[in-house]
């Protein structure tokens, strides 16, 4: 589904990632773990087109998407969430999700400004779809609140609803459990499985080991910019190198 | 509670008093004659607008103190155009429609004047502009007059002097604003008639702080004299740069710097500079026989008494405009159309900027004798004879 080949990223002399390769099978849940500074978020940024890698290739299915812009990738069904929750704070919760439907609608500036019939029809469908995604994550009651006024946990959910509105094939989540309490985390695990049930591939970067071991079918371990191991949760838990470099540290 | 009541009583008392006072003046005096004024009191042309406003206000106060015109007081409504044509147009509309003025003096700049001309032409209100641009009264517009001397007259005065000195190759350095570009046009337009050749033609920006590059280029061009056309502070920088570069050519300036401020800014570098100016800055040096001398002294002394500084060339434009206007009102009453006709009949009026004679063909009213040449000697003006 998604594979990276020999990704290397050098920032002005500092090597953040070195020759990282792995692939993700369709409809799976893959976790990427590693201590701080291992290069997890950098990897996400490269895959989603925010950074330009120094070397290496990224494939989505058969397609080489190595240097695609984020907006193009969204059109291809690759979408992500952010570690620090990047919501459109001044817009309502519903509108946030409606932005997620941007690639699913076509009206241009002129039909929008002149409210041509096609645009009105489209707007209605977009609104209905957006409500459906809010129902999916359980945010319908908050639909008209400004996103910046949401509590943190619900902000995370909104980010996921917004990403789902893109109707992705694959969704990359950057530490979705960070800052959530245990009840919220349990809800998140359930939501992740629900997303998988829709036939969507999931990749998550996460520090919450319990969540990772719980939901992930396969885990990639990064350390100091290099891939340390790749396997099932059980294999990873037993991997000596991983324990030494990572779990042992904790 | 008590205090509130007390202050209310006091307040209403004061209010009634004020109202009574106003009503009283309204009832007992004949309504004042309203004159509008558009000056660029702030903004880049404030150096024009400020003395003009001061002068106009002074004239009105003087006239009112001596009983007004035929018993009627004058009321001056001043609007600041900030040198912005849009604000000038708003202002002129307000003066005409809201204040219902009978005539307008100003604006200070050519741009503002050009912008308000269509409005006054349509409304039929006489306007006496204090700006110099030749376009204002050429071609003649029915309702528009002006008091500032055409730049062409200043150019002619300098060229005449150059002819006398047998100088024929000159360099010009003009500022890239309305004043400078008008000067540049006139310098070029009159050159041929005087047999003068402009061999270097340079400009500088109004905010420039160093003109050595242009002057170096001029020096290499081989001119016999330099004419700089601008308003403070640019020409002062030019004067200093000329001295710094050790250029020995005679330096001429325009009437745009005929104020003491220029001498102050240029300091020793001002020595020997020659410029055309209205007679106002050398009022005391004028011979007794000079036709304008009385007017000049009255203005200079009056201004000094009120504002503690010497009146200048620019304030003089407003003085002339006010005088021409009040003379016309005195003869024709407060009907705008009658005022206009009376203005056009003005003949041999001795003003500050020169001796004005308007006619149906000429709404500028001056000849090149409006200017005299002055030289800066010992940090002061000296009449060149």
């Amino acid at each position, binding site marked *: 589904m998604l594979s990276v080949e020999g990704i290397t990223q050098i920032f*002005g002399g500092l090597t953040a990632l070195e020759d990282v390769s792995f692939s993700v099978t369709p409809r799976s849940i893959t976790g990427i773990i590693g201590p701080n500074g291992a290069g997890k978020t950098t990897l996400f940024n490269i895959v989603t087109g925010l950074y330009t890698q120094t070397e290496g290739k990224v494939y989505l299915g058969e397609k080489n998407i190595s240097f695609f812009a984020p907006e193009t990738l969204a059109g291809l069904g690759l979408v992500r969430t952010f570690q620090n929750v990047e919501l459109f704070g001044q817009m309502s919760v519903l509108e946030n999700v409606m932005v997620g439907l941007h690639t699913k609608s076509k009206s241009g500036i002129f039909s929008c400004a002149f409210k041509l019939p096609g645009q009105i029809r489209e707007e209605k469908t977009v609104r209905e779809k957006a409500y459906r995604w809010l129902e999916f994550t359980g945010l319908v009651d908050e639909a008209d609140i400004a996103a910046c006024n949401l509590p943190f946990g619900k902000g995370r959910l909104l980010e996921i609803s917004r990403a789902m509105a893109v109707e992705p094939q694959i969704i990359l989540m950057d530490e979705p459990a960070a800052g959530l309490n245990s009840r919220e985390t349990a809800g998140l695990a359930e939501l992740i499985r629900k997303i998988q049930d829709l036939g969507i591939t999931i990749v998550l970067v996460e520090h919450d080991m319990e969540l990772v071991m719980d939901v992930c079918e396969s885990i990639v371990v990064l350390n100091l910019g290099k891939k340390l191991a790749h396997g099932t949760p059980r294999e990873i838990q037993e991997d000596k190198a991983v324990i030494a470099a990572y779990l042992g540290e904790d | 509670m008590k205090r509130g009541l007390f202050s209310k009583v006091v307040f209403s008392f004061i209010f009634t008093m004020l109202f009574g006072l106003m009503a009283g003046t309204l009832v007992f005096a004949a309504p004042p004659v309203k004159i509008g004024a558009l000056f660029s009191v702030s903004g880049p042309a404030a150096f024009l607008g400020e003395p003009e406003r001061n002068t106009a206000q002074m004239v009105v106060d003087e006239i009112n103190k001596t009983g007004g015109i035929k018993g009627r007081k004058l009321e001056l409504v001043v609007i600041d155009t900030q040198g912005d044509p849009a604000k000038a147009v708003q202002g002129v509309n307000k003066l005409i429609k809201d204040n219902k003025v009978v005539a307008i003096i100003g604006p200070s700049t050519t741009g503002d004047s050009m912008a308000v001309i269509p409005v006054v032409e349509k409304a039929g209100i006489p306007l006496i502009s204090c700006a110099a641009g030749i376009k204002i009264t050429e071609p003649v517009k029915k309702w528009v007059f002006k008091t500032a001397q055409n730049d062409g007259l200043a150019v002619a005065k300098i060229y005449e002097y150059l002819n006398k000195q047998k100088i024929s190759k000159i360099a010009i350095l003009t500022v890239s604003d309305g004043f400078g570009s008008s000067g540049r046009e006139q310098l070029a337009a009159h050159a041929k008639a005087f047999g003068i050749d402009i061999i270097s033609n340079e400009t500088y920006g109004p905010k420039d702080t160093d003109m050595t*590059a242009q002057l170096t280029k001029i020096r290499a061009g081989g001119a016999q004299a330099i004419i700089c056309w601008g308003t403070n502070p640019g020409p002062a920088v030019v004067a200093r740069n000329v001295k710094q570069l050790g250029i020995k050519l005679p330096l001429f300036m325009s009437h745009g710097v005929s104020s003491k401020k220029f001498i102050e800014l240029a300091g020793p570098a001002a020595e020997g500079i020659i410029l055309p100016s209205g007679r106002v800055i050398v009022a005391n040096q004028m011979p007794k026989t000079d036709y304008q001398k009385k007017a000049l002294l009255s203005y200079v002394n009056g201004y000094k008494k009120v504002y503690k500084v010497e009146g200048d060339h620019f304030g003089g434009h407003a003085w002339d405009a006010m005088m021409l206007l009040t003379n016309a009102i005195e003869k024709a009453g407060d009907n705008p159309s009658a005022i206009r006709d009376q203005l056009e009949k003005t003949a041999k009026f001795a003003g500050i900027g020169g001796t004005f004679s308007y006619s149906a063909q000429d709404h500028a009213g001056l000849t090149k004798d409006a200017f005299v040449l002055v030289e800066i000697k010992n940090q002061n003006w000296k009449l060149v004879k």
Partner: protein
Amino acid sequence: MDHPGQLVQYVLTGLSNGAIYALIGFGFAIIHNATGILNFAQGEFVMLGGMFTIFILSFLNLPLIPAIMLAIIFSTLVGILFERLAIRPLKNVKPLSLVIITIGASIFIRGAAMLIWGKDTHALPAFSGSNPLYVYGATIMPQHLWIFGITIMIIIANKLFFSYSILGKAMRACAYNAHAASLVGIDVKIMVLLSFMVSSAIGSMAGIIIAPLTMTSYDVGIMLGIKGFCAVIIGGMSSGLGTVLGGLLLGLLESLGAGYISASYKDAIAFIILLLILFIRPEGLFKQKATQRV
């Protein structure tokens, strides 16, 4: 046709104007490097320096040197007030709000200066005489030497301050990562305040040393500020040699442009260069490609 000293004169003129631009550019760089703010009011401190000096000279009748020192102190006070009243209380720290606030401050300072000192232009006496010096057929004023000297002095002082003093190092740390700096016990707020103080002091110094040549009035700040900004952009936002080179290059291009192409378009030339650099090499001409932060 060419006068013997013509080219030399253009170069000298360009260099001396360039040194002024560089000095003004420093002020931008210091605040930007410590806070990420581009202070659009920087030019106004240049104006304040000159105007305060003239005010003190004429109203308090102090000799030149104490007057200059006092003027720098006054301008620095204005800088402190500016930071305390308009920058620090700001909650919504978006670049856009900072742009607007600093523009607002520049308009406000300019307006206040106009109300207090009037609209007239004033001249400051030269520090050491006004007899030009001759160099290879060209001339410069003694004041130009002051400008070169003070610019060099400020570069050196800057270098020493930021490389060797604890305060300077702390300021650099803040610029690199304010959060991390606060973790190691650096008071970030003080550092921001300090950067405003240093840059308003340098700005006013620039305003004072150029006033004898260029004269000053309430509205000189805009153009000088923008030119200083050009210098610092060409120089890649450095508070050292880069900006000096940027300023000198700008000055040279202007004077050669005025001399050999057209004086009317010399400012346009400067701004077209600014745009080109922003478009093509936003990291400046004299810096290696910026290291992207992770």
